[in-house]
């Protein structure tokens, strides 16, 4: 990877982590339009699967710090996943 790419990635991931911090501590707890309408109608979610980190929380650590850890780990995981899939698709084509 070129140093130009490395610099772009470091800056981009820093911005992503700022999004996570601001999101966790300032904005995360208000409801989305869809949730509000569903609540008005009494429509209930019927999960078909139990996720390991429901609603971006760690079971037993349901606070902002847990959400922050999840956000940071999730962002890094998505970077690796996106990069991995992109590399795989690029390799398949060449």
């Amino acid at each position, binding site marked *: 990877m070129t140093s130009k790419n490395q610099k*772009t990635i470091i800056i981009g991931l820093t911005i*992503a982590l700022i*999004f996570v911090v601001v999101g966790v501590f300032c904005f995360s707890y208000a*409801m989305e339009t869809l949730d509000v309408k569903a609540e008005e109608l009494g429509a209930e979610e019927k999960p078909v699967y139990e996720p390991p980190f429901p609603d971006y929380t760690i079971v037993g650590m349901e606070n902002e710090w847990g959400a922050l850890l999840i956000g940071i780990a999730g962002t890094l995981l998505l970077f690796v996943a996106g990069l991995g899939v*992109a590399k795989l698709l690029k390799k398949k084509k060449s």
Partner: protein
Amino acid sequence: MHIPDGFLTISVIIPTFIITILFWAISVKKIKLTEKQVPIMGLLTALFFAAMMMNYPIIGGTTAHLLGGASLGLILGPFAGCISVTIILVLQAFLFGDGGLTALGANTLNMGIIGIFIPCIIFLAINKAFKIKSTTALYTTIFISALFSDVTAAVSAGIELGLSQPVFQYGLSVAVPTMAINHSIFGVAEGMVTIVLIATLLKLRPDVLEKSPILGKLWIFQNKKETTE
């Protein structure tokens, strides 16, 4: 905008999955990434996962989050953009329960297909019709593309929910305008963010945008090609 399990009827779940699987297959087949775009795809996938975690207040005590469809589509192209949003949605559903597994087809259709392809089509159509040749025209076009990305994705979600009676008794006449109005307000923010992101890349990493199937058609890059030829 993530529809959970239990909100959609089977008559909506099946067709949305069929359309989505078709687009996944087309995207995998048609995707074209350059060496420089590979790390950028990883970066943008992570960036918009993080951005989706952040819910901004809009009206009536509700919130909305960035979709990133216009940014991903315009920078990486619609096929890579579709794959990128799919990665986000799949991991959100499986790890965090954000969006249901039965609604994965619908959520991908809304955010990863409509939210990606619509801004690309709008951008290309405007560029073809008016031959964008100034930064003002460029940023206006980006803004319009991003705004319509959010609105059409929200309308699509509204249609799916409206058709899912009796779960959503409101039906189409309420579900569609509610989603569209709230998300058009947020579409303005999406437009601004998309402009900032693309303007930053144009300044710092034009080499990444030069090979983009969408932004690579801009006059800046076409003139450069003509000069080198």
